[in-house]
């Protein structure tokens, strides 16, 4: 399988805390790749680095689209070469990049993401949320919109068409005009995925999409993700804690702990992998009877576990989706 995304030697630290240390993995085109790992392992940080929200200290993130290869890190955080110091255009570009953060370029390259904590435009309707997502695809000239030219109306109608098509697919057609903040939680999560889809991506990054969903909703979600892969030509990168979901739908699993990739391979291979069990449960032996449920902790009788030694955790634990992303050091 050809890789769509290559991440090599990605490193990132917050102050003295190394959040990522040389993370390397590839995401195959048209496959579902899952990133798993205990809390604080650095999964969300990987997402933030490859979508341009964080500037990684080192590493390469490459998106190999059919049209050509894009170096995402370079595109988002261009580094100034010594010979550019006297080049006004390069300096201006640098200043502009410093101000904008360049995250919009990642979306233009075809990567869309969702967040661990739902980030909807709560006071806007479902359709408006989806129209905002198509901002870069629609007619934006001021006079065209004010005069409602033919082209503008056609572009708006096309945007609505796309939005409604995704809503129908996800069974949220009836909610088109409801306020996003009024939706039940499960629907909000679904809407966030639809909104990401409306940016017309090739790679969809989902950060814990099943968190807080009930089993039925999780089922529907896994069907949806499979469908996106099979019928919509999408590649999916998934962070997930629900091991059932991961084991059932993913083609490839990357296990992260303490900012390092400790194992990767097929879901089946990961189930019994000693390093993985070590990271999750603090035990190095495969656990019997965990075949169906994968790595879910509840299938392991608690009494059979050795006492878990306290792990040396990084001292500061801030959820990045709550923390002010601007506050991170460049």
């Amino acid at each position: 399988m050809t890789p769509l995304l290559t991440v090599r030697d990605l490193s990132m630290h917050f102050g003295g805390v190394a959040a990522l240390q040389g993370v390397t993995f590839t995401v195959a085109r048209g496959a579902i790749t899952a990133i798993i790992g205990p809390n604080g392992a650095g999964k969300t940080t990987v997402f933030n680095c490859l979508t341009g929200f964080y500037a990684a200290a080192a590493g390469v993130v490459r998106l190999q689209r059919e049209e050509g290869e894009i170096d995402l890190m370079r595109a988002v955080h261009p580094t100034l070469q010594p010979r550019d110091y006297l080049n006004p255009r390069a300096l201006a570009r640098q200043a502009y990049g410093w101000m904008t953060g360049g995250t919009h370029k990642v979306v233009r390259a075809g990567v869309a993401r969702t967040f661990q904590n739902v980030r909807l435009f709560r006071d806007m309707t479902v359709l408006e949320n989806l129209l905002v997502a198509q901002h870069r695809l629609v007619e934006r000239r001021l006079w065209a919109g004010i005069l409602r030219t033919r082209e503008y109306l056609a572009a708006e109608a096309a945007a609505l068409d796309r939005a409604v098509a995704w809503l129908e697919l996800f069974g949220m057609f009836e909610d088109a005009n409801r306020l996003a903040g009024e939706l039940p939680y499960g629907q909000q999560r679904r809407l966030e995925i639809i909104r990401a889809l409306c940016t017309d991506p090739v790679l969809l990054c989902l950060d814990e999409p099943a968190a807080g969903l009930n089993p039925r909703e999780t089922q529907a979600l896994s069907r949806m993700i499979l469908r996106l892969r099979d019928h919509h030509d999408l590649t999916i990168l998934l962070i997930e804690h629900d091991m059932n979901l991961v084991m059932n739908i993913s083609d490839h699993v990357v296990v992260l702990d303490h900012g390092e990739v400790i194992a990767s391979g097929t879901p089946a291979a990961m189930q019994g992998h000693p390093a993985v069990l070590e990271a999750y449960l603090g035990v190095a032996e495969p656990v019997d009877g965990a075949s169906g449920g994968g790595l879910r902790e509840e299938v392991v009788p608690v009494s059979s576990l050795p006492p878990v030694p306290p792990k040396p955790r990084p001292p500061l634990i801030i959820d990045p989706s709550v923390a002010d992303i601007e506050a991170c050091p460049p």
Partner: protein
Amino acid sequence: MSIAASLKHAARWGGLTLLLSLPLSGWMLNGYQVTTTWHRPLWLAGGVFVGTLLAMALARLLEMPPLRKLRWRMQTKITVTRRPALPAWEWGVLLTIAATLPLWLSTYWLNVMILALIYAVLGLGLNIVVGLAGLLDLGYVAFYAVGAYGYALGSQYLGLGFWTALPFCALLAATFGTVLGFPVLRMRGDYLAIVTLGFGEIIRLLLNNGTEITGGPNGLPAPAPTLFGLELTRVAGQGGTPWHTFFNVTYNPNLRAVVIYMVLLAFLALLFFCVGRLQRMPIGRAWEALREDEIACRSLGINHVTVKLSAFAMGAAIGGIGGVFFAAAQGFVNPTSFTFFESALILAVVVLGGLGSSGGVVVAALVINILHELLREFSDYRVLVFGMAMVVMMIWRPRGLLSMRRQFFAVGKNL
């Protein structure tokens, strides 16, 4: 609409016109007696009634199959309906009533109305920044000052006329808005409010202390607008022709106010229309999305910097135009007109009217300014009354007089 419903609708508007026009044009003060004349209000009401019926018949006609093709229909499976707050013709009635106000109002109240409309313009501008983009700007008065002084200084040093000053000052203020926007790009909430507050004060102090250029606290004269090259003053400047000489009529000192009022009204109507469209356009939705969640915006490919700056620039440009009107109406500018209190008042207009609601902002601007004048007798307690009104409003209607209307789409399933 059925015929009966149409009749009812028309009767409603006719009745309303009757009610409104009775005190306005039906009672005449005759010496010490008030005489009631029925024919004028009745004619007005009858006119509105028939006009409404005609307008509805016309709308009905346009819906008929042969004529329908004349109208541009979107080639989509989805029908998008936009339900404006008021149908177009009702806007027409409102505007007509507003445009005939100078005939009824005294010069004093006409000037009050001009100020109210200027506040409405400023409110619409600030509404973009605060209501839509969610950037709390406490120094909005700076752009108002830039517009007013831009006109006064421009006419003094560059010989700018009123009509050229309008776009010029809009651009100038937009530039100031962008300049302010850059340093505050990464700020939010309280920090942003403090910095913008400081910016407003800086501009005022500059105007106050730059005595050589701006005249300092003494201010500057601002010329009256011209109309098709004719001056509205009693004596024209060099080379100009005064209006009354040209038409050979007696000089009317009211004319300046009337012309400014009419131009301002036309501009406000245009602005209202444009802001309404902007809100429902990609840029307007992006402003709102930025207010709701900046990080989500960025994850959707929106360049939050340009979107933010465009909100600042657009708001500032509108503030600048408000300033030009203010200077032209007063005939004079000085820094005391641009204190923080003005910023607070404009913000109050926006909050009271309803964040994001253009209609609310205009209503609030009218209410605040008219109340302000009515309460002149209690001028010592005016701000107190005003503050209490704000508190009561916030309890009674936390989203403002008219809360913002979201755009709903009528979506139909694909066949």
